[in-house]
């Protein structure tokens, strides 16, 4: 006798995903002005039509405008890939402080720049283990479900990653919480989480 929360994993549009961790090339730096060599992480990385929230590092090399080199790398931390970047869209990268460069670095999104889409699957979360759903912040692209287990260093949790579209991460958290409630209120029930236009990229337990 167990209660499970079910989440549909997978994406409908494989050209509409977070950016992949690592270097982005090629870059258009024709409107970038050299300020100083160094690394900037105070970046706004936004698509012209869609795609926000990615985080990374721009490394400026050289000593002046003529010798300037520019490299952009997307971070490897969860959420650094942002949300909803689309193949063919032009993305602008701006440094809010402008310590190393001013102007806008741009690149056109290719399929190779996006994460590998997850295979279609149904993830099961043991609702009987779950204690509560964490309230996410606006910038989060994940929802955590705290469990009654301890890893030795922290409370174990399920972490669900999402690609958001026309829905907030808080609305997803409420929907997961509702599925949790529904599962707990009916023995052997296995409710699905209502995702609306969001897509679940995966569920981990750690």
């Amino acid at each position, binding site marked *: 006798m167990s*209660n499970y929360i079910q989440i549909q994993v997978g994406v409908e549009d494989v050209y509409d995903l977070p950016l992949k961790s690592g270097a982005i090339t090629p870059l258009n730096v024709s409107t970038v002005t050299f300020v100083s060599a160094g690394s900037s992480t105070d970046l706004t990385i936004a698509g012209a039509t869609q795609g926000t929230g990615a985080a990374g590092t721009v490394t400026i090399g050289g000593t002046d405008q003529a010798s300037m080199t520019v490299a952009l790398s997307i971070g490897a931390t969860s959420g650094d890939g942002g949300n909803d970047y689309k193949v063919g869209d032009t993305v602008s990268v701006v440094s809010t402080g402008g310590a190393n460069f001013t102007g806008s670095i741009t690149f056109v999104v290719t399929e190779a720049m996006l994460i590998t889409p997850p295979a279609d699957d149904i993830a099961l979360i043991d609702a*009987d283990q*779950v*204690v*509560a*759903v*964490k*309230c*996410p*912040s*606006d910038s989060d692209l994940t929802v955590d479900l*705290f469990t*009654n287990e*301890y890893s*030795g260093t*922290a*409370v174990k949790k399920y972490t669900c990653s999402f690609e958001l579209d026309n829905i*907030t991460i*808080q*609305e997803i*958290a*409420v929907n997961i*919480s*509702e599925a*949790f*409630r529904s599962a*707990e*209120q*009916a*023995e052997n029930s296995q409710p699905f989480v209502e995702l609306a236009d969001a897509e679940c990229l995966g569920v981990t337990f750690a």
Partner: protein
Amino acid sequence: MATLRFPYEAGGFMTVKVDRVIDVVAVSGAAKKIDLLTDLPMASGEDMKITLEYKTAEPTATDRTLLQEAIVEAAQTPASSEIFRLTEDDKTAGYALAKTNGITVASA
């Protein structure tokens, strides 16, 4: 399994499992928070603590007593999931759990 639901600033309700809660206490220096202490063993000598944080409302001693009573009642009513509101709750966002970190769980 016994759960309670709490109003959430972003809309709707957040569900908390309260089966193993053994006490409801104030949080020193954080008037908007309530700690739900459980008997779930975590780190050595510690148990799980569920912290609720309201957007602006400051739960009173009466609220904590009522919450403890609601938890006892929920524990005796399997499959229940009642909504718990603070006594002064006028159904505005201030009386809801904070949008970010309204619920946290830790070993303590």
